[in-house]
């Protein structure tokens, strides 16, 4: 079997959020560490779309930055076996330099990475803009002249101009309207098949993920709790948190039905619960869950599932 394009091995990322040195000394406080990513292991296979989902504070954005090389893990290893990786960001407004023209924005990777001769750059930019559904004349304009959806297209063009094998997408459609989102998602799917791209797609929106992902990883408080092929995850979710997430998604099919939402909310990542971090909200938690952190075995990290305590009937 071919080696994975990207492998993440037991990666942990801590952030030092201690108060300034002087205040700490005066109050006798120790250092405070925020563990944004906690021992995550997974791999990204050639040609697939791997989605990572979770709510705020689950570490998915941090892991995106780790995967693309913007940040280094505090522990563990990330190995990239491809040539180049690029990233698409969430905010269409902050991801383009407002003082640069679009053609320069899109050309920057080509120039920096020296992927073409000076004379060819203009033609390449025009081709890329056409590929994402924009006109060549749009290169002369500034970002603020475009709508949110168009700006994301420019971001995609910029990422593609770097000729990447792996494209990490951090919530690329979260800031867009539904109809624009559909256009962008379709565009990304087309580009993937045409250019043989591999995507890592970060999102909090399970519905979006169900449309575009091959495999889905669910994260909670920095840990990977479940990782399964998309079809499986959505029809037979195993981890209690995954089930809770799926239950909580507002559904159009459920018009007018009463519902009982799950109680509780995501705890403060600075003080995660001991043992299994989900146990305060889990209907199946027992003594072991409170004490012992579950290992990620057989694509899920849950004592209840591993012991066979939780049934799969839906």
């Amino acid at each position: 079997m071919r080696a994975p394009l990207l492998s993440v091995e037991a990666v942990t990322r801590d952030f030092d959020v201690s108060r300034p040195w002087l205040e700490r000394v005066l109050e006798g406080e120790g250092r405070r560490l925020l563990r944004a990513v906690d021992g995550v292991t997974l791999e990204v296979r050639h040609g697939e779309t791997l989605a990572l989902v979770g709510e705020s504070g689950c570490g998915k954005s941090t892991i995106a930055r780790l995967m693309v090389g913007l940040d280094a893990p505090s522990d563990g290893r990330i190995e990239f076996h491809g040539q180049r990786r690029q990233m698409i960001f969430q905010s269409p407004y902050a991801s383009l330099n407002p003082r640069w023209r679009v053609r320069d924005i899109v050309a920057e990777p080509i120039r920096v990475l020296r992927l073409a001769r000076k004379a060819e750059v203009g033609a390449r930019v025009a081709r890329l803009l056409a590929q994402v559904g924009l006109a060549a004349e749009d290169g002369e304009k500034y970002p603020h002249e475009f709508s949110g959806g168009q700006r994301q297209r420019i971001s995609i063009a910029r990422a593609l101009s770097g000729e990447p094998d792996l494209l990490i997408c951090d919530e690329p459609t979260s800031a867009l309207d539904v109809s624009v989102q559909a256009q962008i998602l379709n565009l990304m799917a087309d580009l993937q098949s045409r250019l043989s791209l591999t995507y890592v797609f970060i999102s909090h929106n399970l519905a979006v993920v169900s449309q575009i992902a091959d495999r889905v990883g669910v994260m909670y408080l920095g840990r990977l709790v479940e990782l399964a092929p998309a079809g499986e995850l959505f029809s037979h979710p195993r981890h209690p948190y995954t089930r809770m997430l799926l239950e909580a998604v507002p559904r159009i099919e459920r018009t007018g039905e009463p519902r009982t939402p799950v109680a509780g909310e995501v705890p403060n990542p600075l003080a995660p619960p001991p043992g299994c971090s989900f146990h305060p909200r889990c209907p199946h938690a027992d003594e072991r869950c409170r004490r012992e952190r579950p290992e990620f075995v057989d694509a899920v990290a849950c004592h209840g599932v591993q012991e066979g305590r939780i049934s799969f009937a839906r």
Partner: protein
Amino acid sequence: MTLACVGAALAAPWIAPQDPFNPAALDLNQAFRPPAWLEGGTARYFLGSDDQGRDVLSAILHGARISLGVGLAAVCFALALGVSLGLAAGYCGGWFDALVMRIADVQLSFPAILIALLIDGVARISLPAGAQDAIAVPVLIVAIGLSAWVQYARTVRGSTLVEKEKEYVQAARVIGRRPLAIMLVHVLPNVMGPVLVIGTIQIATAIITEATLSFLGVGLPPTRPSLGTLIRVGNDFLFSGEWWITVFPGVALVSVVLSVNLLGDWLRDALNPKLR
């Protein structure tokens, strides 16, 4: 309006009716002549003459030139120093940031005039006497500049900290650009805006600082007066009736400063791509 002022000041050596700095051209007999439209005035001394027979109009033109020159240069120097330090401090963070900010804090606890005085005084002592007059202007520029860089550094640092987190900077890092390139090419254009506006307002402050220093004797020598010096010197004659010696330089100073401020506003708007 700015163009008129600046233009006139620059052209001073050619259009002034009299070279006020050439002692030979002075005629003490013509001293204290009132402006042309009052009784006793002549067309030759259009705005009157001062105690040494210098034509006030010429003095204003030359003085404006010097004032503007010194003010502009000092601000440019402060800008260059402040912006680069602020940009680097904001972008790099860590110990460099802490160091620069502490120096800035320390300097802020001293009044600007004192700092300028200090630098100028040190320069005087350490340089040979003959070179002093020639060096006086550059030293003055450096002195005023060094006393003012801190505010630019702070403003730029604050803006840099904000811009640094924005995703277009992250994108540049993903592409693989070096930090220096990112700072200059991406961050700098986006943080310069407020700095330019502050800078143009600061030209006025610089001119006034320079006038104060000159009055105290550590700025420009009295043989090459600036607008500020003229105002100060002419002040003495205000109550003896020769009001024109101080009033006209004063009016000139106000209009120069006003037009420079307007220029700054226009400049900021012109450089904003969103308004094009």
